[in-house]
């Protein structure tokens, strides 16, 4: 639906007409310049768009979409291209619309703790703009130094701090979206309560299939006054998992609870010599935050719980430098893994947090069955796992086994009551797994909803929902970006 072959675009003189709307610098059409747009963080498949348009304002987005609507051309929205599920891969959509020039922070209202930004604003720029006032924008995906607010909204992004602070949808008051016909709508608003249906809730996490987000009003939270960071070392992932449950069972909600398993620990140690015992089975990074008053007692309790559940050692960060050191192991895990094998592929799945030991056992069994090495570094507090499968893409049989293993892991997540994606989205990558979670009727309900906004499937077609016409056949897993 809505796709148009290259010939059609040329015949319509589309590039020239788009240049009139957005200026010469806003239209990219040479093959070499289009190369960076052929994939996002999901590099399994590549397909360059025929044109990239970079509108200079939300109003230009409307003009561009109106033109595409009249010409019957489908489009793909793109923020910074850090997505990990191929959400911005052009499939049956010749024109890509980037938000990289929509960089204005339009208003900052410190008293009411709100900011209004254009969708191409980088996530971290929001927090930086309000840091002096002691406020921050809570969602913090690991790509936050480059990823955009618009992309975060499209994916309903999370981050290491979602356990305590929630995900993107909990922090967006309103957004402006341009529908495929070029009309702009405001969903939600500047106030917390708006009359009518919560349409904003549907647009958030819709992966660009309803329109292009051009502006958003975000709510800010107070930056925590203090924090305490610990690193606990265990003999096994079961012990570390027991501590996760014990902490939460004690009524403590840490700001972050991240786990590294043996393979990752060894990789990190070999690469950076951070001082992990070679035989450690699991490492837990725990961060508490809040007001100073209660933190001392809470951190004592957390340390006690670690020790009583078998931690062989608990390291405490005494200052910001030591804190950075503890986080280094977590943040550098992906770099370290890069040294173990020519390629790696990161999965994203969710299980109820009490099933973390079970899913890790299941992943180990999968690894053994397929003769693969799989490491785990993940958000243990949320049950959001990120198995990293190591491989060599030149070994075609290994590649086949990697894909097979990835599918098995997601199936195991669903069987344990979880989900096929906690924060990366479905994109093109997980379309085939959607029926594991949803019935044909559930999927039909979602498709019908989509058609309220996008009756012709012009906005990011062939994403999220299984559709016979553009069945994606995975061949080479090469996604290496950290999350």
């Amino acid at each position, binding site marked *: 639906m809505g796709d148009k072959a290259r010939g059609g675009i040329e015949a319509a003189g589309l590039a020239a007409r788009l240049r009139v709307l957005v200026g010469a610098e806003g239209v990219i059409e040479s093959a070499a310049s289009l190369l960076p747009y052929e994939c996002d963080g999901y590099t399994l498949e590549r397909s360059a768009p025929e044109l990239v348009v970079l509108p200079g304002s939300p109003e230009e987005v409307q003009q561009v979409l109106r033109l595409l609507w009249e010409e019957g051309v489908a489009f793909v929205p793109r923020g910074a291209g850090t997505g990990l599920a191929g959400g911005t891969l052009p499939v049956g959509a010749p024109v890509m619309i980037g938000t990289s020039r929509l960089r204005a922070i339009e208003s900052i*209202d410190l008293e*009411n703790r709100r900011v209004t930004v254009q969708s191409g604003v980088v996530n971290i720029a929001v927090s930086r703009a309000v840091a002096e006032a002691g406020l921050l924008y809570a969602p913090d995906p690991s790509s936050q130094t480059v990823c955009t607010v618009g992309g975060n909204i499209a*994916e*309903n992004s*999370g981050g290491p701090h*979602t*356990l305590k602070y*929630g*995900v993107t*949808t909990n922090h967006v008051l309103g957004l402006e979206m341009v529908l495929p016909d070029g009309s702009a709508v*405001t969903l939600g*608003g*500047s*106030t*917390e*309560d*708006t*009359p*009518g*249906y919560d349409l904003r*809730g*549907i647009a958030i*996490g819709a992966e660009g299939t309803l329109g292009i987000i051009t502006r958003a009003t975000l709510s800010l939270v*107070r930056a925590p006054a203090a924090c305490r960071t610990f690193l606990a070392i265990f003999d096994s992932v079961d012990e570390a998992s027991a501590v996760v449950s014990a902490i*939460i*069972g004690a*009524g403590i*909600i840490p700001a972050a609870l991240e786990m590294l398993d043996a393979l990752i620990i060894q990789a990190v140690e070999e690469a950076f010599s951070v001082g992990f015992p070679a035989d450690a089975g699991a490492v837990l990074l725990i961060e508490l935050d*809040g*007001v*100073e*008053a*209660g933190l001392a*007692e809470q951190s004592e309790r957390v340390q006690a719980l670690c020790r009583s559940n078998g931690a062989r050692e608990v390291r405490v960060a005494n200052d910001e430098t030591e804190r950075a050191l503890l986080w280094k192991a977590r943040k550098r895990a992906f770099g370290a893994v890069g040294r173990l094998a020519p390629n790696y592929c990161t999965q994203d799945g*969710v*299980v109820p*947090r*009490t099933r973390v030991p079970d899913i890790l056992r299941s992943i180990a069994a999968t690894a053994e069955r397929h003769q693969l090495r799989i490491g785990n570094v993940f*958000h243990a507090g*949320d*049950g959001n796992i990120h198995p990293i499968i190591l491989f060599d893409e030149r070994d075609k049989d290994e590649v086949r086994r990697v894909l097979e293993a990835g599918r098995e892991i997601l199936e195991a997540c669903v069987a344990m009551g*979880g*989900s*096929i*994606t*906690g*924060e990366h*989205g*479905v994109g093109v990558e997980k379309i085939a797994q*959607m029926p594991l*979670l949803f019935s044909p*009727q*559930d*999927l039909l309900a*979602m498709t*019908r*909803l*989509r058609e*309220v*906004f996008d009756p012709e499937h012009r906005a990011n077609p062939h994403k999220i929902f299984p559709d016979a016409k553009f069945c994606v056949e995975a061949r080479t897993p090469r996604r290496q970006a950290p999350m």
Partner: protein
Amino acid sequence: MHEIPQSAEEAAALIRRAPAEGWNLLATGTGAHLATGDADEGNMVRVETAGFAGIREHSAADMTVCVGAGTRLGELAEHLARAGQWLPIDPPRAEETTIGGLLAANLSGPLRASQGRARDLLLGIHTLDGRGDLIKGGGKVVKNVAGYDLPRLHIGACGGLGLILEATFQVRPRPEVEHAWVAPPCDAESAVALAFALRAAAEPGWLELAGSGVLAADGVTVVAGALGGHADVESAIASWRGIAAGGRLEENAAALRRRLADATAAADRIVLKAALLPNRLGALLAAAAEVGAAHKESSTLLAQATAGVARMLTPSIPCALAWIAALRGALEEQGGSLIVERAPSALRQALRAQTSLRGATPATIDLMRGVKASMDPHGVLAVGRLGWGI
């Protein structure tokens, strides 16, 4: 007419019969919040959710709970408390509020200031759409971005997009202690300034403004609630004590909080709800008091300082109309709203004859109509309850 289906299949059969019978179906729990709809419930066929009551699954260690739509919050709270947990949503008349009602009417209370509302805690939902088909959205885990976020669409939809069968929420540890600091009453503008100063000193668990007649005979009383560990609560109260001197410590703060929540839903009152930027609350409350001066004895003002929500209560239609005439236009112009949130049936019908209960038609009404038609194509689910004919 009342129906009490005992299974999803029975409810689906009712929905499938509705077009031929000409039924407009309204799912109801205990009826505690029937006054919140736009179109009157008088001509609707009530589908009671008592057959879908009960706690389906509570995984304390996962901090999630799945409950039938007909379950009362009171029952759920008791169950969760045994595991040291709570679902931190505190609507008026919480004991008798059902899960379905909480979601359909998007009810909340003072705790929204720190704990969020249903949209922040709902993980998954099972509904029957207007075709009688079972539609599932979301899931049972705390993090999940697979597919469209259907659960949130049902929140505040007044039952018009689906009959809610069950819902899964994330729950939280119960705070060890909850205290409040009750400031001495003052004028509206000073009260809002004080509320902001209290928040700057220590992040409150809740922050309410109670107008004349609620806690004090005259003036606006700011109440800041602190919840959490003993040390955190003590430190918050100590900092507020320094800012709002002359106030008093309320150790039974949860009861006071419930009283303030319940005050927003007095059974015989018309309740207007304004949504606006929090720092405009002072001006709004002052204007509302002035407009309602002639009805001062029977009218009440309450507000939530961090949310930017004010409620004006009166038994008098002229007073309600005067508030709407004086305040709605300016609020809407500033991106806010003023709606009739609830009113007893007779008063609601009388009001509707003279004004729009929900205010200006939203600019996105076409999308809303489209969403309604996609999920309820035959128009059999609570048509007219949301407002603007849908």
